[in-house]
Each structure stands twice: as structure tokens, then as C-alpha cells.
């Protein structure tokens, strides 16, 4: 079951809210836990094995956690940590490779990262109290973040989970955020996907240079609104029940450099790699040793590429981003300081290009597409471009507009006007549901990672 499923919106979510708000304070966590399990079960009715994998992994990882926690010797604690992390990485590698299962269990990469995060935090922080199995399971299986994050650190989750700020105001604000996320996914992302679909039907060898550029930005917008929409829905549901989840996107296309872009895009994944890979490797503390920094960046991006999947396009994508970031660290940042418009242009042009590589799995097709981006000979016949423009110019322009900060500024202005927001929320939900019915709303892209 996905957040943009009508069963989820009209059946699961209302029942959950009703049960949650009627339940007494000491019963609310149980309700969240039960509904989280039900959410995963209903979402995997055709792949019940995914449910077993989640339950078994959670039990095994709790045993690992208990072992790490109860060990007093730091050296042995470290060894136990390495074993636990290695086990989880092995699980991801095996299940992602498709050797045993045709499809990877939904949300595997995300909940495994939660396991790793809690192990490292418990090992490094002696102030952690004893974590009960139920609380550990609640942290892992909490349904708004179960399938695609945001990846939340245990200490932050625990803080908000045990001190829920339940109020009618928060409930409504959560719903506003949910509705905005839903509309980003169902109205914008799914419609922009039609452009990509049309280009696929035309065939990459048939498209003109302008269509190729429109397609490149469409791939970017589709990915952005899909994942940002999902993250907002997760944050909105959690906020409605008084739990704060971290932001995952912060207007990334307004960044002044590619490095900054990656601090604003999928923020929680970036923070995960920063805290658990980059900084332990030495990070950027040693400013004099630039080579060491470069090696660290390469390791982080190599892992980021592999985390998305064992496909050559993900590796190419990660390596290209890595090269740009290294160039920025060594040279370009000095240029940006003198003229920040250069950095903005690089973000606006190069980031969609990297997402193009990210989105096209077939290398021959990718080559063909990249060549089309610079094939000026196609200017002679722009029938395909005219056809796409005629059908999709509205959604393309709205998409570009939503990549800027204007919609967020408008939203912040009316955020506290309850009546206006309620009306907007209802309109957005109705429109989104209509779009779910008329378009082939597909799964969220990040469910596959």
C-alpha cells in the first residue's frame, strides 16, 4: 500500500487517525505499532515473504543491538558493531542482487540503514538507555517512514516519539503537508512522467535537440516531485500524530553549488553518509590533506551509487557527481565566491544531466540520448517538440515554477490561515484523487532502492 493509494487515503489513514486519537496516551504507541505492521502487510499481500523478512531482520538486529549495548569492552563492542553492520550490508547485497528474490523487499535499504544507524549511535554514545524490543521495532517499523524514509536517527526519533505534541492544530498542519505532498506526486510528478513516456514512445533516436532538453528536465522534475512529495506525505502523517520527522528536501535547485545541492536533496541520506561514513573516514577535518578528502568523497559517492542499485548507470551517476564535487572543492568554489551565478548555472544545467544518467538504465540508450542533447542537425524538424509542447507545456511550466521558492513563500504566508488552508487541502486532495483515477499513478521511484 502506497500513500497515493485511494485505499490508504480513504480507508487506512482515517481509521488510523480515529483509533489513534480515541486511544489513551499509553495505548497510542500500540496503535501506531499495530497499524505500522498492518500497513506493511497490506502493502505486501502479494509478497508475504517481505513481511517475514522485515520481522526476522528486526528480531535478529535487536539481538545484535542488545549484544552491542550490553558489551562493556570497547574493543569487543567495535568488533560486534562491525559484524552487525557487515551482516546488514550482506543482506542488502544479497537481496538487491536478485539471487533469491525477484524483487527487493519494499523499503529494505531504508530500514537496514535505520538498523545500522542505531548500532553506531549505541556504540558511540554511552548515554543511551536500554532500548526495549518494542521501542526498537516501533522505531524501525513506524509506517510513515518505513518504505522511503526520511532516515531518522534513533535519539531524535525517541525524543519526538516519547513526547508527542498532539493537538488539533498539529493534526491540521500535518494534513496540509500531506495534501501538498500528495499533489506534488499525483498532479505534478505523474503528469510530468507523461512527457517522459511520450519521449520513450517517440524513441530517443527520433527526438530533436529541444525535446531532448525538455526530457532531461522532465526526468529531473519527475524524480524531485515524486520523492519530495513522498517525503512531505510522510512528514505530514507524522506531524498529524504529533511526531516530528526531519525534512528531506530544502529547495535544492536554489543551491549555489552542486555540493550544496546534495546537502538540500535527500538530506537524511546525505546526513547518514556524512555521519557514518565520511566523518569516521576522516571527513574534511584534515584540511591540509586534500587527497585524503578526495578519497573520502569518492568512497561516500561510490557507496551512494551502490546503495541505489548494482547498475552501471547508478555508478556513472555517482562518479559524475563525485567528480563535480571534487572539482568544486579544489577549484570551482573559489570561482563561485566571486560570481555565484556560475554555481547556480552549473546546478541548473549539470544536475538534470546527472539525473538523466540516473534515470536511463540502458547504456546504449543513454549514449543516444546524450548525443541528442547536442545534435543541432535536428533543429530542421521540430515536429516532435511542437507535439510535446502542445500537449504538456502547462505542466512543464508549473513544474519549473515549483522548483523555485515561490510556491513555498506563498504557502508560508497562508500556512496559519486555517480556513484558507483547509479549503486548499480539500481541493488538493480531491484533485489528486481525480488524477490517481485518470492517470496510471505508478509506485514511488524510491521504493525500488
Amino acid at each position, binding site marked *: 500500500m502506497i500513500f497515493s493509494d485511494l485505499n490508504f487515503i480513504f480507508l487506512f489513514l482515517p481509521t488510523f487517525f480515529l483509533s489513534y486519537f*480515541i486511544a*489513551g496516551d499509553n*495505548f497510542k504507541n500500540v496503535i501506531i505499532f499495530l497499524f505500522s505492521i498492518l500497513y506493511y502487510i497490506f502493502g505486501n499481500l502479494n509478497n508475504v515473504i517481505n513481511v517475514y523478512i522485515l520481522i526476522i531482520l528486526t528480531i535478529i538486529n535487536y539481538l545484535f543491538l542488545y549484544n552491542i549495548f550490553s558489551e562493556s569492552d570497547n574493543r569487543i563492542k567495535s568488533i560486534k558493531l562491525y559484524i552487525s553492520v557487515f551482516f546488514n550490508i550482506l543482506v542488502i547485497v544479497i537481496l538487491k542482487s536478485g539471487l533469491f528474490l525477484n524483487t527487493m523487499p519494499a523499503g529494505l535499504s531504508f530500514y537496514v540503514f535505520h538498523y545500522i544507524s542505531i548500532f553506531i549511535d549505541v556504540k558511540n554514545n554511552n548515554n543511551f538507555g536500554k532500548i526495549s524490543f518494542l521501542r526498537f521495532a516501533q522505531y524501525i517499523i513506524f509506517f510513515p517512514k518505513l518504505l522511503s524514509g526520511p532516515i531518522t536517527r534513533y535519539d531524535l526519533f525517541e525524543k519526538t516519539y516519547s513526547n508527542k505534541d498532539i493537538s488539533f492544530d498539529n493534526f491540521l498542519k500535518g494534513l496540509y503537508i500531506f495534501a501538498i505532498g500528495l499533489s506534488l506526486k499525483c498532479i505534478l510528478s505523474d503528469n510530468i512522467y507523461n512527457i517522459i513516456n511520450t519521449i520513450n*514512445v517517440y*524513441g530517443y*533516436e*527520433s527526438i530533436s535537440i529541444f525535446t531532448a532538453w525538455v526530457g532531461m528536465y522532465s526526468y529531473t522534475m519527475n524524480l524531485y516531485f515524486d520523492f519530495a512529495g513522498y517525503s512531505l506525505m510522510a512528514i505530514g502523517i507524522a506531524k498529524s500524530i504529533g511526531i516530528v520527522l526531519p525534512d528531506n528536501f530544502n529547495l535544492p535547485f536554489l543551491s549555489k553549488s552542486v555540493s550544496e545541492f546534495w546537502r538540500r536533496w535527500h538530506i537524511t541520506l546525505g546526513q547518514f553518509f556524512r555521519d557514518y561514513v565520511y566523518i569516521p573516514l576522516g571527513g574534511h577535518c584534515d584540511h591540509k590533506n586534500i587527497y585524503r578528502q578526495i578519497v573520502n568523497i569518492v568512497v561516500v559517492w561510490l557507496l551512494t551509487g551502490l546503495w541505489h542499485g548494482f547498475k552501471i548507470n547508478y555508478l556513472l551517476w555517482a562518479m559524475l557527481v563525485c567528480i563535480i564535487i571534487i572539482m568544486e572543492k579544489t577549484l570551482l568554489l573559489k570561482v563561485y565566491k566571486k560570481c555565484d551565478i556560475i554555481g547556480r548555472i552549473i546546478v541548473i544545467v549539470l544536475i538534470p544531466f546527472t539525473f538523466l544518467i540516473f534515470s536511463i538504465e540502458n547504456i546504449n540508450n543513454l549514449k543516444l540520448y546524450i548525443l541528442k542533447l547536442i545534435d543541432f542537425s535536428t533543429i530542421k524538424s521540430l*515536429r516532435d517538440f511542437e507535439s510535446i509542447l502542445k500537449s504538456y507545456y502547462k505542466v512543464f511550466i508549473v513544474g519549473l515554477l515549483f522548483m523555485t521558492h515561490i510556491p513555498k513563500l506563498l504557502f508560508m504566508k497562508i500556512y496559519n490561515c486555517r480556513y484558507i488552508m483547509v479549503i486548499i487541502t480539500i481541493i488538493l486532495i480531491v484533485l489528486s484523487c481525480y488524477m490517481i483515477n485518470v492517470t496510471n499513478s505508478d509506485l514511488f521511484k524510491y521504493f525500488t532502492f
Partner: protein
Amino acid sequence: MKNIEKKKYHILNNIISTIILIVFIFLENLYFSVFTKSNFKNIIDNLPKNSYLYIKNTLNKFYSNDVVDELTNSTEAEVSISNSTNESIELTDLNNTFINDNIDDSTGNNEQLIELPTSEEIIDEDNFEDTVFTKKKLKVETVSLDYFKNTLFIGDSRMVGFEIYMKIPEAMYFCYTSASVFNIFENEDDVAPIGKTKLYDLLTNHKFDKIYIMLGINNLQTNYYSHKKQYKETIDRIKKLQPQAIIYLIANLHVTDVLDPTKLHLTNENVNHVNEFIKDYADNIQTYYLDPNPMYDDENGNLKLELSTDNVHIHLVHYDKFLVYLLSNALVEDESTTSNIITPRS
């Protein structure tokens, strides 16, 4: 005292939320079971509609065509009996048409079929007599793009692809995604240079020399007989409205052998069934059958994988072959030819 009340309140709340949870689980279970049943019901409902093709395809593996035709006709008759009165009349009529077609086929006299087009029964006799076509002598020739002057292309999304690839200024295109013989006269299309118009208005306000039609792919899951009947009616209507035009009935392009699990009807077996009756409706007097499929097919008769991304629509650049095919299979008037029965080049 307050604490006791609060505790009671909490217990009551917990009981209520547990009840809601149980009801929810029950409803979800009920919903999923009903959903599954409704899916099953859909299959059952559609079974009579599709049964003919399924049964025929299966039997073809074991028996000769004649035996299969006989068997499937009787099966269809049985299906029609089990349906409601109105439906049964329609199905029986269609069945009869099919049997008549078979009788004609069995005589092996194709010329008789051509000389007596089945459209006679439907078209107003007087108007149809006005058709100058029977007197035209035609020959197949390779022509230039000028040939498409005063030409109309009618079709679905695959013809839209051709329109995008090759917008011939002198020609008109009445093509849109999801077009079919069931909706081609219903829907409007933006036809350059006129603007939005219905096909009927277009055909009554303009006189075309040639009309190319490619329809059928969007009705592969429709009742075979209804589709066959509707195709015939549509073509007859176009013939009636444009008696002077050469009408090319283009076979539906094949799909690749990759099956879309959500569109199981999109198979070349079904496409070929439709193409067969399209071929039958080509009277070689006013309507001519063109089959560009061999250009795009692999050795198994499926659309080559590399030509399409979605397994249905060929990439735009490959319409160049299509254009060349149309140009090299053009019918032009020929004084020297005595017969008016012409088969385009394969």
C-alpha cells in the same frame, strides 16, 4: 476521585480504539475479499466476449481451420443462448455474418467477394451507385510526396506517430490517441488547417482523393464480432461520404512479443485476427488493403524489439519506411489496364 475517573476514561478509550481496530481489520479483509471477487467477476463477465478467440486459438493447435471454424461457431452460438435476449439477437446476427463469410471463403471464389462488396446491404443503394470507382482503372506505382495532395489520414496513436514524423502540408490528419472505429465519428480532433472538427463534418465539407485508415489496435479486447461489424460500418460510412476517394485500409502494425501484464490482449494473434477481417473488407474496387508489417517484423512475425520502447508504438524515425511503403504502393489511374482488380505490392 479525578484519577479514578481519568483511569476509567482511558480504559473506555482503549476499548473503543481496540474495537475500531478490529472493525478496521474486518473491513480491510472484507474489502480485499470483495475486490478479489469483483476481479473474478470481471473475468467471468468478459469470458463470453473473448471466448471465441481463446477457444479458436487453442483448437487451432490441434485441428484444421475448417474443423475449428465449425467448432467455434457452435461455441459462440451456445454463448449467445446463455446471454440476455437483446445480446443474444446481436450475437446471433453476428454469428450468421461470420458463417456467411465462411461460406463465401469456402467457395474459394474471391473475385465474387470483390465484385459483391458486403457494404451493399448497408449503404443506400442510390448513393452507392454514384460511386465512380468501379469505372476507374488503377495501377500500382511508386509516386512522389505530391501524391498525398488532398489526402486524409485517419488513425490511432500509431498514425499520430506518422503525423508527427511526416506532416505533409497538403494532407490532413484525423488521428488521435485511443481512436477506434467505435469513437472515430464521435470525437473531435484538431485537424490542421481547419481546427477542431468531427470526422463527419470533415468528410462532408471536403472531397479527398485518397484516404488512408489504420484503426483496430484499441479494440483488441472488444467483442470480436462487434468490432468486425463496427469496422465494416465505419468504412462503409466513409465510403458513402467520400465515394470518389481511393480508400487504403492499412493493417494494424504488429506489437513485440513482450507481453504487458496489464494489457494481455495486446498480442499479435489478436492483431492478426483484426487484420484478417480488414483484409476481407478490402473490395479492391474502392478499398484496398495495405500491410506494412513485413517491413517491421522479425522472423516470428512480431514487431522487432529494437523498433519500439513500449512494445506497441514504433519509434518515429522508423516511419520513414512506412512513408516509402505508402509511396511505393500508391494507386494511380491507368488507361491501359483493363481490369479494375488490383492487389498492391507486398
